[in-house]
C-alpha cells in the first residue's frame, strides 16, 4: 500500500517553486539509453520537449518521495505542461510530462547555484532537447524555477 502523501499543500500549487533541474535520455536511443524505453507515459523521446515529474502516480511517488526532502509536489499526470526557467539567465522552456522522476529523495539537500542564486533538491528532469534550450548539456545540473505556463 503506498504511503499517503504529506498533508501540507504541495508547494507548486502555491506558486513557482525553485529547485534543481537535470537531464535524462529516453526512447530507444544510443549509449546507456538503448534499453531505457519510452518512460512511464510511453511517449518519452530525447528529441522532444518533455520532462519527468516526481508525482505522476502513487507508484511514482513511492519511488521519488520528494516529501522526504521536505518538499511536497502536486499530482500531475502525463501530458501536463510545466515551464522550467533557468535561474540567473532567465531563459525558459515549456515541456510536457512524459516520465516519472527524478529520484528526489536520493539527493535530499543537494544545492546548485548560478551566481549568488541557489536552489535545493531535484524537482524536475528534462529531456536533452528541453535542457539544451536553457543550459548546456555539459552543465549536468542547474538551479531553476518551475511554474505552470
Amino acid at each position, binding site marked *: 500500500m503506498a504511503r499517503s502523501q504529506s498533508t501540507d499543500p504541495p508547494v507548486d500549487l502555491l506558486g513557482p517553486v525553485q529547485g534543481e533541474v537535470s537531464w535524462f535520455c529516453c526512447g530507444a536511443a544510443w549509449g546507456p539509453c538503448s534499453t531505457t524505453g519510452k518512460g512511464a507515459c510511453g511517449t518519452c523521446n530525447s528529441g522532444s520537449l518533455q520532462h519527468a515529474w516526481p508525482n505522476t502516480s502513487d507508484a511514482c511517488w*513511492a519511488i521519488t518521495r520528494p516529501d522526504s526532502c521536505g518538499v511536497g509536489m502536486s499530482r500531475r499526470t502525463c501530458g501536463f505542461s510545466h515551464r522550467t526557467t533557468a535561474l540567473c539567465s532567465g531563459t525558459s522552456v515549456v515541456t510536457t510530462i512524459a516520465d516519472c522522476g527524478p529520484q528526489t529523495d536520493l539527493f535530499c539537500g543537494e544545492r546548485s*547555484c548560478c551566481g549568488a542564486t541557489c536552489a535545493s533538491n531535484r524537482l524536475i528532469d528534462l529531456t536533452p532537447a528541453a535542457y539544451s534550450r536553457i543550459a548546456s548539456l555539459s552543465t549536468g545540473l542547474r538551479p531553476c524555477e518551475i511554474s505552470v505556463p
Partner: protein
Amino acid sequence: MHGIAAPQPYVIALFLIWAALMKLLSRRMRAQAGQTALARLVGAARAVPALRIVAVLELAVAAALLLPPASPLDGVAATALCAGFLLYLTYGRLAAPASSCGCLGSHARPVNWRGFGRAGLLLAMSVAAIWAGPYPGGATLVAVGMVEAIALLALSAELDHHWLTPLRRLLVRVRKPLAVVSPQDIPLEVSLRLLYASPAYCSASAWLTSDVQDTWDEDGRRFVVYAAHGRTAVFAVPLSGGDPSAVRVALIEEPALT
C-alpha cells in the same frame, strides 16, 4: 549420496522459513510488491496476496522437510517449489527485465546472475534432499550444510548492505583507488563551476548560444570562449583564488570568420 543429502532439508527449510517470514512480515517488501515480476504476472492489485500465498507454500514445504517422518516426497515437494522459482525468475527476466524478484528482501533491483545462481543451487539441493534420511550426524555434514548456507547468503543481493558494501568500503579506505596522483592540471570543469558562480556569467548567460568553443591558460588565467548571438563572449577566470567576482567578461564583435 545419502551422506551429502543429509543436511539439505535443514538448510533448504531454514532458507524457506526466512523467505516466507520476510514476505509475511516486512512492510517494505509489501510496499514494493508492485515493482516485482510477480505483480507483472498476476496484476499489481494481486501482488501482495500472491506474495502471501507463496509464503504459505514456502512454510508448508519447510515444515515437511523439518518435521518427521522424513520421506522422499519432502524432497520432491522442495524440488517442485524450487523449479517454480527458477521458472518465475526466467519469466521475470524475459517479460519484465527491469522488475525485481520479490523473493527475499525489499530492494528494487532487477534479477541478475546471482538470483539465478541461488535458485539453481536451491534446486540442486532439493533434488539431493530426495535421498536424505532422517537424523544426519557428523561434523563433515554440518560443515557441508554451513558452506551451502554461506553460498546461499552470498548469492542473496538483498543482504549486500550487511556485508559486501562494508567490505568494499573498507577496501576503498585501505587502497584509495581514486586518490589524485599528480594534481598539476586544474581540470576545466573546476574553472567552469567558478564561472557559473560569477556575476560575469550571470549577466551574460542569457545571451550565450553555444557551449565552450575554445579555452586556453595564460598568465594565471583561464580564458573561456562562447558564441553569443553572432558575437563572441570571452571570460577570464582566475586559475587560483576561487573568487567568483574576479571573473571578467567581454562581448566582442569579431571580424567575419571565413
